[in-house]
């Protein structure tokens, strides 16, 4: 019923590098998506990876959980070389300590909300039915939901689905949380709600977060540092203020897409 307990990641002290991407290359059908990405994520921070749609942001974070593999380069997580992991069992040991919030929530539509949140607990923790029920309630409360356990995911709004998916992501108390476009497809008010939730969780859970988005508003609000992925490379890494003060032409074009399209005659 339950798998082997996963070894705890030996996390570095806060502020020290936890995840290192080095010279990451990835292409699909001879089309380069990532062309030598170098990026460091520090323990305890919220790093936002910005970039246009199709820039390869999600591809990069998918590599952290083994959903994608780089064509070349190295990724280390707390000293573990991820490109050296060969089997799903090896990956699973790490995945148990990471949470991944998918863009479209990816809730299991053949389960209720409660069963969705309970899914990782049922498979990886030796707990009684009542204990699981209690944890599900707590995790749902953490994301601001109450009495929704028996509902079908399809009965919820987009924002609520995202919250349930986040509760499922938090179920195993991960050390690292990856948010893949958490506000995509949501209205501005709901997006702000999700952004506030991410910030609150960051304060209360003491985790390292990587957030992928093209939404500058959310990025400015939750990010300790922002990285801009442009043309397959990280062209900027710094604080929100540094991003806004940057003279980098790629940063400027990302911050003012209208002026770029005008100058390109689009």
């Amino acid at each position, binding site marked *: *019923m339950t*798998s082997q307990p996963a070894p705890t990641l030996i996390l570095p002290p806060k502020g020290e590098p936890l995840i290192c991407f080095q010279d990451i290359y990835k292409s699909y059908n001879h089309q380069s998506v990532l062309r030598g990405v170098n990026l460091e994520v520090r323990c305890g921070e919220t790093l936002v990876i910005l970039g246009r749609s199709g820039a390869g942001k999600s591809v990069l974070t998918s590599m952290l959980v083994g959903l994608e593999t780089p064509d070349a380069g190295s990724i280390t997580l707390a000293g573990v070389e991820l490109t050296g992991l060969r089997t799903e069992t090896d990956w699973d040991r790490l995945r148990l300590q990471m949470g991944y919030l998918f863009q479209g929530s990816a809730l299991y539509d053949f389960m209720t909300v409660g069963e969705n949140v309970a899914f990782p607990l049922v498979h990886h923790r030796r707990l009684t039915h009542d204990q699981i029920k209690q944890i599900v309630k707590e995790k749902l409360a953490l994301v601001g939901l109450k009495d929704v356990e028996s509902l079908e995911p399809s009965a919820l709004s987009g924002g609520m689905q995202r919250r349930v998916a986040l509760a499922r992501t938090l179920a195993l108390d991960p050390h690292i949380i990856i948010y893949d476009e958490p506000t995509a497809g949501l209205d501005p008010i709901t997006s702000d709600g999700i952004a506030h939730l991410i910030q609150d969780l960051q304060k209360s859970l003491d985790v390292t977060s990587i957030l992928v988005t093209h939404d500058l508003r959310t990025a400015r609000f939750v990010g300790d540092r922002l990285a801009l992925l442009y043309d397959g490379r990280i062209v900027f890494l710094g604080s929100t203020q540094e991003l806004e003060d940057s003279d980098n032409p790629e940063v400027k074009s990302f911050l003012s897409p209208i002026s770029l399209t005008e100058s390109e005659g689009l």
Partner: protein
Amino acid sequence: MQDRVLQLAGHHVVRFVDYMGQLTLFFVAAFTALFRPPWFFREVIAQMFHLGVKSLPLVAVAAFSVGLVLAMQTVGVLSWFGAANYIATIVGMSMVRELGPVLTALMVVGRAGSGISAELGSMRVTRQIDAMRVSAVNPMKYLVGTRLLACMLVLPLLTGVADILGILGGWVIGVTQVGLTSKYYYQLTLKYITLKDVVPGVLKTVVFGAIIGTVGCFHGYHTTHGTFGVGQSTKAAVVTGSLLVLVSDVFLTRISLLIWP
């Protein structure tokens, strides 16, 4: 022209061999995963209910109708030779040896095979399968292995029901048109049917179950191109599943006749 035809034929043969190779590897991966913990007994039972119990009415109606029609068509010919009584034996033998297993498999391909493919295809395009992997639960085991095993367990049971209902269909004609008594019909049915007729029929349904489960899961699991792809996968699962059931039946029947002549 001849070169072109040969080239085209060669291309299709290579594609077919490649496809069959992929199906076989997929089956081996899912089947061997079943022998390693964790075990998902509850999921297998749930799938047996979804794939088996819910297919029961369809299989029952189809088998009863086929038994009925088979008897209707045969009774006239048998009467020419004064052998109308043997309607019971012919219907019984046909259902147990051939029609029961194949009919059940084709019904299950249409209902459960398409369902499996559509379900897994939808899960693939909405990234639920990725979410499962990220939750450190192996989808090949949890989703594919359980459905494959359920198909292999459920097909023989459904075939048993189909055999009985097909024979009942023949009984209706035997009693109403030929004038046999129920007891005599029952005796004539059992008189010539032996284990040599029943066992091969049941065993080949296990293979049919493996085919339906593998093909349905394979196409669903490898769905691409969004909702359009789900439709394509479902269609491919039904068409390929039906064809493989019919083609494999030829070989399985030949093998069973060699083992139990």
